[in-house]
């Protein structure tokens, strides 16, 4: 999942550094993630993993690192599987 997230970051987040060089817990905002880029990142994540991120999860924390994104995707996939 994290390699898919790195690919999405490369394609849609327009970071200042290559996504491959980022640690799982690296601060994405510090890597140049702008608020407009988060919108495209969100749409790409939803499309890739077939989920819809609810408004309550749409926070700065969600986009803060690859770990936090992966955590949210897992949580939403589990919730979908249970439903």
């Amino acid at each position: 999942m994290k390699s898919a997230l790195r690919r999405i970051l490369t394609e849609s987040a327009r970071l200042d550094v290559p996504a491959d060089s980022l640690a799982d817990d690296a601060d994405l905002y510090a890597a140049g993630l702008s608020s407009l880029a988060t919108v495209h990142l969100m749409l790409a994540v939803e499309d890739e993993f077939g989920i819809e991120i609810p408004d309550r999860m749409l926070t700065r924390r969600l986009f803060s690192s690859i770990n936090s994104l992966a955590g949210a995707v897992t949580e939403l996939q589990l919730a979908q599987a249970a439903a």
Partner: protein
Amino acid sequence: MNASTDIAVLAAVKAEEAAAVAAQIVEGVRQASAEPAWFTAARRVAQVAALHAAAVDRDARFPVEAFEAMRRERLLSAMIPAALGGAGLTLAEVARICETLARACSSTAMVYAMHQSQVACIVDQGHAIPWQREMIARLVDEQWLLASATSEETIGGNMRTSACAVELIDGAFRIEKLAPTISYGEHADCILVTARRSPEASASDQVLIVAPRDSLVLEKRGGWDSLGMRGTCSESFRLVAEGRAEQILPVPFAQIADQSMLPVSHTLWASVWIGITADAVNRAHQFFRAQARGKPGALPPSAGRLADAVAQLRMMQARLKVALDAATEASSERIARDAQEACDFDTPLGASLSLASDMNTLKLSISSTALQVVQETLMICGMAGYKNNTDYSVGRHLRDLFSAPLMISNDRIQLNTANLLLAQRTPATGRI
């Protein structure tokens, strides 16, 4: 006609004049008692501004007289909360001041509006920091004028990125910035400057630095000979600021821009554009009435345009009111969150995204509609409107308003808004 009837006629005329003067005084007293002191003060400043508006425009010079009057009336601290020494006016009240000033002199009103968005940044984001509180106190005491340096030569107009960076050594910093425009930079007592957080930080990882005049060196690199808004003196500079770490606001600039700068600047700019439009519509109305008096019984051919211009102006005012309500609500929600010490990190982004797109669409619609309406008033006033220095001139209004779609380009705002709408699942069409 003999001498005695002459005297009788004269006496009647004098009596009529005296009655008119008395009526004016009564009306003045009525208005004064109905109207809050800050609004009367704004009208007094507007009178001064109107007197010099033509010269300010002709010579592309700063509206010195209006700002002297503004300092006398203490309007520069109008939006600072009473607890910090200001008048504590609401955003909607300051918007009325902007509109009042804009009916007299666009440049005066725009400089005042830009100053207020800088005030909002320091008050919202710095009030808990002793150094910043000290700054706010000086602003109130000395009626400081605040300016902003966000644009940068290699970056262009995108204020959300910077090239220059803060270098902190032992709690002291120095930055150097090539700014293509710092509006009224030469006349400001303090400039708020964006920069990257550190030499290693990415272009969008910005901070905002509060730099009073004594910590600044400004070297003028280019002038301001423009189509309109000539009194804003938006010249280009090389800026060097040196100071202490406390001058740097701790929250990221992205947050300051979203929470304070964007809502205040877009609502107050809109108020300025509405004020300019209102003055042009008034002129067209006066022209229309004078024209109709000349030919009783028949309406001038432009009659429909006037009705349309008034209708559009009223729509603009209503749109502004909706935006002022939204900005006020967002600001009180933020204050409530801060009081609970809730972490911004976990605040859902939905509300701030919808506020941003609402402010953007306000800017897009008011800036373009204002131009359309003033063009209509030119059609109504005809050659009298086209000529400068008549009672019906609207040329300056039109030239000044051509800046509206450019200051933060409407093209860029359109794309940003479309981006924001991508993220919004709830309807962007407002509450019913």
